[in-house]
């Protein structure tokens, strides 16, 4: 279960504090419910994911994580370009305290990512789809209760999305995902509930279809 209570967030700019990105966001994600975050560009979706993932802290309000939450998989970070996929994978295993079974996890990551020989090439040579595959495989190699994905899932091709969705179906009895995506198909494939981000607030919908509908109504209106 993840509790987000009255969270406010703004960033420091070169000219003092910026405008509020999140203005009192409150919701509770029950265990084993996969949620899709919907909203226009700049609505604060990635900011919210970073806060839930624990890499940033809110200016006001609190976030409680009563479960193991993955790091936020996003385009920006997580992989060091100068090192190979294998070296990056080893690093992630180590910081998560899995020193003893690195070979098993590496084998799993390599098999799931299906990027072939590129696994031993520097990450800076990867395409965005290959990076997405590696990031997804990396996080699936660990037993999290909640996986956080910031648009990364959409970068993989159809075959990989299918594989990832199937992997999540298998995990469905004990794990869930929180994801940002602009592709409706991907959202429907992975999520049951939806959060619509609008003007610094978050609106919870038990059904992802209702969230999509609410989003479209404001966009088209």
């Amino acid at each position, binding site marked *: 279960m993840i509790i987000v209570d009255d969270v406010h967030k703004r960033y*420091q700019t070169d000219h003092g504090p910026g405008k509020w990105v999140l203005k009192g966001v409150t919701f509770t994600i029950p265990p084993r419910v996969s949620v899709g975050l919907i909203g226009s560009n700049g609505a604060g979706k990635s900011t919210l994911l970073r806060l839930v993932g624990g890499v940033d802290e809110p200016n006001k309000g609190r976030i409680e994580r009563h479960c193991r939450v993955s790091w936020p998989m996003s385009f920006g970070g*997580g992989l060091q*370009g100068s090192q190979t996929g294998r070296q990056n994978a080893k690093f992630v295993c*180590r*910081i998560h*305290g899995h*020193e003893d079974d690195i070979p098993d996890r590496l084998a799993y990551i390599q098999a799931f990512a299906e990027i072939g020989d590129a696994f031993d090439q520097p990450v800076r040579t990867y395409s965005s789809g290959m990076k997405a595959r590696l990031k997804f495989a990396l996080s699936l190699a660990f037993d999290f209760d909640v996986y956080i994905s910031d648009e990364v899932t959409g970068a993989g091709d159809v075959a990989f999305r299918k594989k990832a969705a199937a992997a999540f179906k298998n995990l469905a009895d004990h794990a869930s995902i929180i994801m940002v995506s602009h592709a409706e198909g991907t959202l429907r494939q992975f999520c049951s509930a939806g959060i619509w981000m609008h003007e610094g607030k978050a609106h919870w919908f038990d059904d992802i279809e209702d969230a999509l509908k609410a989003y479209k109504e404001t966009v088209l209106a």
Partner: protein
Amino acid sequence: MAGIRTPLAVTFSVWKALTLREALSRLFAGRASWFWLLFEPVFHVSYLIFIYTVIRMRTVGGIDVVIWLIAGMLGFFMFRRTATQASNGVGANRALFAYRQVKPVDTVLVRGLLEGVLTAAVACILLCAAALFGHDALPDAPLSVFEAFFGLWLLGLGFGLVMSVVTELLPEVGRIISLVMKPLYVISGVIVPLMSIPQPYRAWLLLNPIAHGLEAARLGFSPYYHAVPELDIGYLYFCALVLIVLGLALHRRFAIRLVTQ
């Protein structure tokens, strides 16, 4: 994953992982990176030995010029390399802050530690080489030499801790500080014997804690070395401690800002 790891256990595993990846990129990232790591001090030392001996100077302050140069040069590198590597730690590992286990201060500490170990190894290699050429490379008071080098390393670490925050948050100030640090090589007494500088100027130069570290290291090699009489190793440790406390406090205060920028 059996239970929740203690914060200390998480930090140790992060340090271990970071040390391995930093060592890998420091030693093998470029073509023969490890060679240049060793070659830079070797080149500096042999270049200066050549100049000094050509003008027929065999001893400085009563000890072998080769040992005088190696002790001073490596002591100075102990400070400067540690400081430079540590200050760039945050910027170079930006991508890894996506994992909440990794804090900016971890990258700085790990880089400082790694650079200290590598410079110590380089110093040993150089001293062995000097011994092979028939110089008296064995220090008379090894513990004093260690004390001096360790103090210089701590000073470099403290300076790196402070600079890593300053260069990220106030790049202009960072640039000015590194400009001010440029002439350090000359004023720390690496190539100029501080004893040859008259008072009151020597007192001014000795405000610089690095100078104390270098003189102490040379004195550790030979008790007959004419070190500056004002030598105070405690001053070096005091400055290092102040910088480390200040640097850690800055990291504590600006941890979130460093990650989000």
